[in-house]
């Protein structure tokens, strides 16, 4: 059943639930962050409209800086501005930033431990028709391996906005990934959000497995939980929006009470949330696991839903993964 403490949207399972892309939450969050702190600046590499940085540009034109199609400059100019005392957000597509400018982020932002927030829009295979070049599926792995870096994958519009506002307060490097495609707005303003703390969205009296998810696919996990419940299979759904630092206490606790874990993310099955959870559990409390995500291959052009179905990241795939993990658990 829904965890009432999570204060999720009352319309969560209704057909007319509002759908908005998480990148819109980034744009709205930028405006709030900019209002709260005059040191917040936004740099963009020729993608002002589609990264929704335009909302900040319209509100604070004097604090918006266009760097052109130059993602390495995007990161390094921001590092210089942060070194001076600004709090720069850098906006581009995840395939280019951190895809192209990883070393610049490593040396000038992470090793310098400067408060630059890297916003990677168009993450995941649900980018759709643009095809494999623009469907960034390795960004969590890239950024998670980097010391000093916080990594967040918000699950919907509202959480994306909160993550953006909170990131501006950390005083350290943060990576946030956003999706291009519209997705259900199923949390509320009252849903708790703290960087580094996972939230239980679906709870059960005697859960047999824990589904740990991040990004818009948390919603698919919720759909899966509801279906499984009808079949008499009780699960937990944990929204692990912060992939780094991972909420290890929540994850170990979930493994202990369920004895089986399924992770869900719109990212390669290597190096993402699944990898992070596996690292924690292997060391602390090993249980059977399934990792739902992109199966170590590149995407292709297609409609977002078609692609998520083809590569196995829909609710039905999560249900199958839960069944598999329960079989392993019973062995």
């Amino acid at each position, binding site marked *: 059943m829904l965890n009432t403490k999570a204060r999720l949207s009352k319309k969560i399972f209704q057909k007319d639930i509002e759908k908005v892309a998480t990148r819109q939450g980034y744009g709205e969050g930028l405006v709030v962050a900019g209002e709260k702190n005059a040191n917040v600046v936004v740099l963009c590499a020729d993608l002002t409209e589609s990264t929704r940085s335009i909302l900040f540009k319209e509100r604070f034109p004097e604090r918006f800086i266009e760097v052109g199609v130059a993602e390495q400059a995007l990161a390094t100019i921001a590092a210089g501005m942060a070194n001076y005392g600004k709090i720069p957000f850098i906006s581009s597509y995840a395939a280019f930033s951190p895809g192209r400018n990883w070393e610049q982020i490593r040396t000038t932002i992470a090793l*310098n431990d400067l408060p630059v927030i890297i916003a990677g829009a168009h993450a995941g295979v649900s980018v759709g028709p643009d095809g494999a070049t623009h469907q960034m599926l390795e960004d969590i792995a890239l950024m998670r391996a980097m010391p000093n870096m916080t990594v967040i994958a918000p699950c919907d519009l509202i959480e994306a906005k909160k993550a953006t506002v909170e990131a501006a307060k950390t005083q350290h490097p943060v990576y946030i990934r956003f999706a291009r495609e519209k997705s259900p707005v199923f949390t509320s303003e009252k849903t708790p959000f703290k960087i580094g703390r996972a939230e239980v969205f679906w709870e059960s009296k005697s859960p047999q497995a824990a589904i740990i998810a991040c990004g818009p696919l948390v919603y698919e996990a919720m759909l899966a939980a509801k279906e499984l419940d009808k079949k008499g299979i009780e699960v937990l759904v944990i929204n692990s929006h912060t992939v780094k630092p991972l909420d290890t206490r929540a994850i170990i606790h979930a493994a202990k009470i369920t004895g089986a874990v399924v992770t869900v993310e719109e990212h390669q099955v290597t190096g993402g949330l699944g990898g992070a959870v596996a690292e924690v559990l292997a060391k602390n409390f090993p249980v059977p696991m399934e990792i739902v995500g992109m199966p170590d291959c590149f995407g292709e052009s297609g409609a977002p839903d078609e692609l998520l179905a083809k590569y196995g990241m829909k609710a039905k795939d999560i249900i199958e993964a839960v069944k598999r993990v329960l079989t392993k658990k019973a062995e």
Partner: protein
Amino acid sequence: MANLSIAQIEKKANEIRKDIIKMLLAAGSGHSAGPLGMADIFAAFYFAILNHDPHKPFWPERDRLILSNGHICPVRYAAMAEAGYFPVAELKTLRRLGSRLQGHPERLRLPGMETTSGPLGSGLAQAAGYAYAARMDGGRFRVYCVTSDGEHQEGNHWEAVAFAGKYNLANLTAIVDRNNIQIDGFTEDVMPLEPLVEKYKAFNWHVIEIDGHNIQEIIDAVNEARAVYENPTVIIAHTIPGKGVSFMENKFEWHGKPPNPEEAKIALEELRKGAKAE
């Protein structure tokens, strides 16, 4: 900083060169040619040009000196020690475990080190971001960036050249160590950079060419840059890699290695004689 005469700054440069030889010998690894070639420029900066206070490395109004080609950090460490940022004796900890003097410089380890660098081509963009941010707030200090010629082969550098040119960052001055060498050979053989002056001009920069071993020319060029209100300035400083040590001068073989004890002894003798000759 007390005003030093040109002759006194030249003496400081000679001390810096001796420090470099000693610290590289103690470290057993590191770069020789670049640091020696830049000793005059760093002496000019730390003893005449920079508005700074070695006892207040985080003073907000200080001029910022961003070192882009981090591998020549021995010259900056030596200049900082001679200027009083930390004891000269600490130079011998270069590249040792626990030292503040990392093989490539790190901002968070050493107060006064304005950024972390080593991977090439990223310093000018950081300096440009610094200058842009300072200008937003009406900051009066100047931002300087020392770059190598070899790192002009990096795309990131030219992205920054375009950015600074577009936004007329007149508070930014770049200094190019035009010593013509890089690890694999002479720059013009590895990947030609010329015509460098015309390239910068095309990007809306004010360009000055100087002899990078002439203290007066270095100071004059920086003063000229201060008087330019419309553009960023680049000072292309022609230098001799390994300057001051005869067997290292103009030899790209000395880019990335330290002297052995015998070579260090000869080098220090030459530098002592050179100082007396002046």
